[in-house]
Every structure is written in C-alpha cells, then in structure tokens.
C-alpha cells in the first residue's frame, strides 16, 4: 500500500499528470493542502490525467480530485470504468451553498424579542398546567379512590426525608457564620444580646425558606425535570396515556402536592438548625448562655415570623415542583433538549423563588416585626 502520489510528465503540449498509489481516505497525505495546490495547478494548465497506476480509489479520493478539477471533467482522462463510476458519484453532488447569515446590528434586539416570546409561552403553558391541576383536583375530590397516594408518599420521602441531613448541615453552618460575623459588629457597640433578635428574625423569616428553596430546587427540582424528561424521550408518558392514565394526575400532581407539604417542614427543620448553629457560635464567641438565648428568643421574635417562614416554604415548594414538571414536559426527544431544560428548570425555579420572596417581604412588612 502506497500513499496517494502525483507525478507530472513533460510531454509536448500541455503535459500529462500520472496519479499512483492508494487514493483513499487513510492514505491521503497529511496535510492535504500541498497535494491540493499541486493538483489545482495541473488542472489549471489543462493537463491530461492518467489514473491507471492508482491501485485504490474511494469517495474521499474522488472528492479531492473532483474539487481540484474545479468540479468539471478534465478534457483528457484515462481511468478504468470503476474509477469513472466513483468519480461520477462525486460529480453528482451539488456544491455547498455558502450559507452566510447576514450580520445585523439589530440581532440583539431580535434575541431579546425571542426571549420575551419564549418567556410569554412558558407563562402561558404554566398557566395551562395550573389550570389542568385545578381540574384534576376537582376530579379527584369526586373520585377519591384515584388519588395517587403511593406517588405522593414516594416524592415526600425522596424530596423531604432524604433532604433532612443536607438542609440541617447547611442551615447549621449558615447560622454559625451569621452569628459569628454579627457578634463581631455587635460587640463594638456593646449590644451583644441583640444577637438573639438578629438571628431569630433573619433565619426564621428569610434565610431558612430561601436556603431550603435553593437546595430543593437544585436537588429535587432538577431530578423531577430529568425524570419526566427521560420519560418523554423513551415514550413512557405516551405509554401512560394509552393506558388511560392522566400524566398530570399521576406524575405532576403528586410531585406538586408532596413538595408543598415537604417544603414547610424542611423550612422549620432548617431554621431550627440555623438557630442552633447561631446559638452555639454566640456561646463560643460572646459567652452568651444557652438558657438566656432560648428564653429570650420567643420574647424578641414574634411567632408570626414562623408562620411567614412556613407560608413561604409552602409557596416555594409549590412553585419549584410546578416549574420542574413544566420544563420536564417540554423536553423534546433528544439529549441536548434534556440538558437545557433541566438547566432552565433550576435557574427558573431559583429566580422565581427570589422574586416571590421579595413580593412576600413587601406584603408582610407590617407583620411580625418586633416593636411595631
């Protein structure tokens, strides 16, 4: 086996080009540019082509030759019938159309428009999903035997019980850090005891719900999107439909309901861990007695804050599950779509949670603040 070679013979007139060796993909010389330039040069001179020494020719060799010839047959060509047939196949291909997308300075405006349209479509589909769930709930009230308890409890376990260790750990550490940093500031004012107020309000009202929401969106939201998405890719959702089982009743509703139940409980758990962490840190840093901390906490943090935290947990759970299921159902049957939808699901869930948290802050600004 020899590499593709080319040799130019000077004869009277335009000359003759003798090709030899294997003109196959694996035998083409690397880099190809020198050979191509050589061939193009000979073709421009209108030489005769002689291919009887070519031992093998495949489509890659044929394409290289054909393009060097400028996509038309040379005037004189000596080639076997087989070689001609392979070259003819290359000749039958129409050249690539230069597809240059015109650059427009307004492309950013168009992108923004597409983004808004996509957001609008998502909002519309989301509303449709919520409406469908409402209809399902009405249906299930009339037919309580069809309530999917099994799926509900499975999600409750996976998204709730299994998330207990990580939420406790993160809550505890946030409490420790917050307490430590605040105590450094408070000490300078001699306002050590206000650590209880500070920690109590911030953790119970704000940090607990938001931290749990971020964790659950990353942990359970992505899992839900991926699960429903894979079920779409493998046509399992269609299989459910042919069995007469509603996908919203069986897949979406149990997830939304379970997360709406699990999230408030996780919020209480995480806030408790945060307070505990803060208490330990305050004790170590400022020698604040545990007994004092515990007895002061209910006096300086109105109980309404706990209810606000639980309410937030409920809303966030509902939203995370809804968004996760919505994006899961929008997965198209390919891997790229699965990954992009899972990303969108987590990003959208966390963004929406932060926005809703801000709305909560405005709406509840007169509730549960000490001294008001």
């Amino acid at each position, binding site marked *: 086996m020899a590499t593709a070679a080319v040799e130019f013979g000077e004869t009277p007139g335009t000359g003759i080009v003798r090709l030899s060796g294997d003109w196959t993909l694996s035998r083409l010389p690397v880099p190809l540019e020198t050979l191509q330039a050589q061939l193009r040069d000979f073709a421009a001179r209108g030489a005769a082509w002689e291919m009887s020494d070519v031992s093998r020719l495949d489509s890659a060799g044929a394409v290289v030759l054909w393009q060097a010839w400028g996509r038309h047959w040379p005037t004189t060509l000596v080639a076997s019938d087989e070689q001609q047939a392979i070259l003819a196949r290359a000749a039958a291909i129409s*050249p690539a159309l230069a597809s240059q997308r015109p650059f427009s300075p307004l492309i950013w405006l168009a992108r923004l428009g597409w983004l808004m349209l996509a957001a609008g479509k998502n909002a519309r589909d989301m509303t449709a999903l919520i409406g469908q769930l409402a209809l399902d709930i009405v249906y299930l009230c009339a037919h309580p035997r069809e309530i999917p308890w099994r799926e509900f409890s499975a999600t409750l376990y996976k998204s709730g019980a299994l998330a207990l260790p990580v939420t406790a750990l993160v809550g505890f550490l946030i409490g420790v850090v917050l307490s430590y940093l605040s105590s450094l500031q408070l000490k300078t004012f001699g306002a050590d005891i206000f650590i209880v107020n500070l920690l109590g309000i911030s953790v119970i009202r704000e940090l607990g719900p938001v931290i749990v929401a971020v964790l659950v969106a990353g942990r359970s939201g992505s899992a839900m999107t991926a699960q429903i998405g894979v079920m779409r890719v493998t046509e399992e959702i269609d299989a459910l439909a042919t069995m007469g089982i509603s996908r919203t009743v069986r897949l979406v509703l149990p997830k939304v309901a379970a997360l709406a139940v699990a999230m408030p409980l996780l919020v209480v758990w995480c806030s408790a861990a945060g307070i505990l962490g803060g208490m330990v840190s305050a004790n170590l840093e400022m020698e604040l007695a545990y007994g004092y901390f515990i007895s002061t906490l209910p006096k300086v943090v109105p109980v309404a804050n706990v209810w606000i935290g639980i309410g937030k947990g409920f809303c966030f759970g509902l939203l995370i599950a809804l968004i996760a299921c919505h994006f899961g159902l929008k997965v198209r049957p390919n891997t790229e779509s699965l990954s992009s939808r899972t990303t969108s699901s987590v990003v959208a869930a966390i963004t929406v949670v932060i926005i809703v948290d801000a709305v909560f802050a405005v709406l509840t600004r007169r509730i549960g603040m000490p001294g008001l």
Partner: protein
Amino acid sequence: MTPAIELRGVTTRFGKVVIHDDIHLDVRTGDILCLVGGSGSGKTTLLREIVGLLAPTHGTVRLFGQAVLDPDPRVRRDVRRRFGMLFQQGALFSALNVFDNIAFPLRELRILDKSHIHDLVFMKLAMVELEPRHAMLMPAELSGGMIKRVALARALALEPELLVLDEPTAGLDPDLADNFVQLIRTLQKQLGFTVAMVTHDLDTLAGLATRVAVLAGQRIIADASPAEVLDVDHPFIKTFFCSEHARSVMRRRL
C-alpha cells in the same frame, strides 16, 4: 494474508457464568460473516468484543493483524478508524442533525476541509439512497428505516474495511428489511469491505451471508458456507434452520 478478524482462544465469563469458552474464528477479507445462535448465547457479547467495547476474560481479538485493545492508544485509534459499526438502534447522536452525524467522524480526522466534508456527506447520503433534503433533519424526525440508513452512512463515513452490524434489520418491516439487505449487498460489492454481523432474521442471513458461524453451548459449533451449515447435525441447527418456514426461506434464497 492477514484475516480481517482473528479471534484466538476468546473466553468470556461474567462472574461465574461462562459465555464463551475458547473461541477461535478467522474472517477473511471480503467475507460476509453471519453470527447466529440462540438468544443468550453471547452473539452480541462476541460482537462487542470484536469492536473492543468489551475485553474478553482470556484470549485476544485482532483486526487486520492488530490487537483491538492494544495498550498503545494510537494503535487503538488507528484500528478503530478501519471499521465501522452499525448499532441495533442506530445510536445516532440525537443532538446533531443527519448531516452533522455523518460529518462527525470525518471532522474528527482533522484532515479534510469543509467543502470536502460537505461533498463526502452528500455522497454517503446518496449511497444509502437518501435525498439531500434529509440532511437537515434531526434523528427524532426520522423513520426507523431512515435511522438505519443514516447510521449506515455514518458507519461508512471513514471508508471502513470492515463493517460490523448488530441486528441490521431488527425493527424493520419485511419490505424495508429486504431493501436494506439489498443496499448492504450492493455497497459491499462496490466498496469491497468485509462484513461481520449478528442477526436473528433468516431472510437477512440468506440474503447476505457468504459464511455462517453458529454459536451454541459457549463454542462455535459450525463455521462454513450457509449451504454447508445446513447439513451439520446439531440440535440447535436443526431447530434454527430446519423449521418449515426456515427451510422454505433457505431453499428460495440459496
């Protein structure tokens, strides 16, 4: 001449279960070998060992005289560029369209430029009898028969000397399966590659194979031309080839 495929003493064990026990097999260049065997006899496992997706417990697999699982990554890569594999479900990259699926192995070579790749992809498409307008479709938009054709075009992209087929006609209706068998046969005549395939389908076997290797009881019990294999006296061969339907298919085709 070095055989295209050379199996020497291949033994495969999964835990305590012995799948293959000391298998020897040579496939000559230009042969169309069909591997048959009962379900669970390890045909697909053997095929996966041939292409180097699975390492046998003992023994060696050589393609074109080079070990598929050579310790040198360059040798491994060079061997892998000399064969093409057609997977049962096509295994097209679902995120890429038909054009990019076929262009993928060509681009990975980093030898050819854009216009060469363009022409080559459309040549392969024409070879598997698909139209240029199909190039921009996504795998999810293709029918079963088209998926097989695109997968075949991708397997042929690097001008392989060996084509490995896993159940090439599974999931196609008889008419399409016939067409596909015809297509493979025509391409084999044109391009002269060696074929190793696994199939359950007697029509595919009778339409393509120049050699049949029968895998039963962890060993290869027969390795000969289709007509000769029919005469081997073994219970599996009797049930596989000699049912009423099988006889009529084989008689019609051979």
